[in-house]
């Protein structure tokens, strides 16, 4: 079973020092694994540590403690050559297609950057590869000589995908790749990602706060709240019978495109604000907003436990 796991995250913690005696716990003791060829969705509200989690997995941030294993090797303990090799295999697609492309480089140069690092190609081979990649993500060869500002948001995000694909990775962290795009373009990009997964056999960690998109693309979904994983289950289970009160509230907030059902359904409205991730409360982090909270929740931090097969929840009440 463990051989199938492409990525294994064990008790990962990422704290930031934000001044005297102030520690921002962006990712606080998160464990999960991603199987080869699978898409794991990661959802949660803004600031809950999804992005930090994704970047720490790729070794872009040094972990405070815990381990990330890629094919059994610890990402944070790799030497220089292993790290380069890992970077060839694990890539990232960034959120903002406007900020993630260097305004001074042409699209061809941007895509070619990774090729130059990991492959030794002649100029003609390199050009052919760039054209191939442009074709794969649905752009034209003419785009190679253009600058990012000459493209639309959707086209830029395709360039971002092509840049990640250029090094022929196995695993891609999609860090909210669609949240900066409008709805019609979102569908195109998600379908492109699904198509690429089928064709190349990619593994995704799909970070998003758009629940319906995550449902569409993911095999399993993890729900994060204030740096912790509160529920991890197959996509179907999360949407049909969420167990954690926070997940229930999130799921109830998805609009249903049918006015009759939409009128009848009850939304679970959460009271209060998300506590600050700087020195978060002890016990269950969701305690103050939870309707089912008891004294135990106030004092003891719940651990992720398997309630049903493959369905993990961190809640004392489930």
């Amino acid at each position, binding site marked *: 079973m463990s051989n199938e796991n492409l990525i294994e995250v064990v008790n990962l913690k990422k704290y930031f020092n934000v001044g005297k005696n102030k520690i921002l716990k962006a990712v606080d003791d998160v464990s999960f694994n991603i199987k080869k060829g699978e898409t794991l969705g990661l959802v949660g509200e803004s600031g809950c540590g999804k992005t930090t989690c994704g970047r720490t997995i790729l070794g*872009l941030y040094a972990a405070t403690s815990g381990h990330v294993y890629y094919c059994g090797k610890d990402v944070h303990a790799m030497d220089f050559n292993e790290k380069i090799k890992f970077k060839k295999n694990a890539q990232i697609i*960034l959120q903002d297609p406007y900020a993630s492309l260097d305004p*001074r480089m042409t699209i061809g140069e941007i895509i070619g*950057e*990774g090729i130059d*690092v990991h492959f030794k190609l002649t100029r003609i081979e390199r050009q052919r590869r760039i054209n191939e990649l442009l074709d794969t993500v649905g752009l*034209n060869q003419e785009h190679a000589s253009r600058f990012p500002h000459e493209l639309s948001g959707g086209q830029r995000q395709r360039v971002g995908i092509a840049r990640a694909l250029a090094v022929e990775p196995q695993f891609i962290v999609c860090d909210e790749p669609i949240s900066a795009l409008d709805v019609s373009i979102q569908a195109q990009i998600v379908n492109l990602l699904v198509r690429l997964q089928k064709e190349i056999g990619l593994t995704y960690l799909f970070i998003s706060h758009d629940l319906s998109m995550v449902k569409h693309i993911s095999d399993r979904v993890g729900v994060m709240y204030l740096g912790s994983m509160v529920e991890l289950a197959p996509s179907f289970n999360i949407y049909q019978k969420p167990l954690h009160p926070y997940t229930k509230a999130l799921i109830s907030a998805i609009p249903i495109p049918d006015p009759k059902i939409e009128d009848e359904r009850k939304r679970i409205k959460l009271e209060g604000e998300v506590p600050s991730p700087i020195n978060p409360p002890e016990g269950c982090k969701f305690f103050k907003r939870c309707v089912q909270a008891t004294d135990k929740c106030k004092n003891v931090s719940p651990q992720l436990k398997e309630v049903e097969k493959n369905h993990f929840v961190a809640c004392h009440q489930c």
Partner: protein
Amino acid sequence: METISKEKFRRIQIDYKESEKIARPQIGYWQDVWRRLKSNKVAILSLIILVIIVFMTIIGPYLSGYDFKEIDSAKINQRPSKENWFGTDELGRDIFARVWKAGRVSMVIGITGALISAVVGTMYGGFSAYFGGRVDTIMMRIVEILISVPYLLVVILISIITDSRSLGTMMISLTLTGWCGTARMVRGQMLQLKSQEYILAAEALGVKPLKIIMKHLIPNVLNVLIVSISFDIPGYIFSETFLSYIGLGIQPPNTSWGALASAAQRNFIFYPYQLFFPALMIALTMLTFTLLGDGLRDALDPRLRE
């Protein structure tokens, strides 16, 4: 209602390859900058005046037929005339030749001074920003201390220590603290760029730090750097002028605009033209560099692209 016969309709295919045909010619970044600069009339006029001034400092001293240090006691304090276009000074030297000869010194100081402070400032600021943390703090405190030292003091100290008042000593004393402003600005820019997502993407791709600096950071700092150079040049020219005016700068027989103005102000009431020409050149050069810098800043700003 009138019916339209079917033959009048024709099916037109959409060629998707055509949709990406580029309507306007492809232009690179610098061509685009030039295009925008050209549309700014003030900047272009400044550029033309500057080119003329620079051109005249090169060929000007040979045009009037007089040498700039040729003393003629028969022609003292002449008004501008056919023989001496800008008149002569109290030693009978041709002011036209002297103004352009003096311009050479001012231009050399302005341009090399700005270039030195740009190079040193970029390296220092880039280093400071890239390493960050404690290195950054220490390096920036050093800059703050250097900035707080009045440059007149530095100039006097250096001219005493080296016991010379040549062009070289003046260059050293002016640039010794002059690069600090550029270093601060480059550091600020680089810090901002460092957190850009494309730098993160390059790191994720495994691009080496040196290559990130060369390919991403420096090209993106270049536009602010060019603007800062064009603003620094008049600053250096003015400093030189000021130093020469108070007698700390260029020594005779060599001359600069400041030295000319300084010599002329003694006879200002009787021979105002002797002050007028060097003062005009100083004013024109400073004004045109500043206006050109302004135009460049607008032209180089990618956010103002049409």
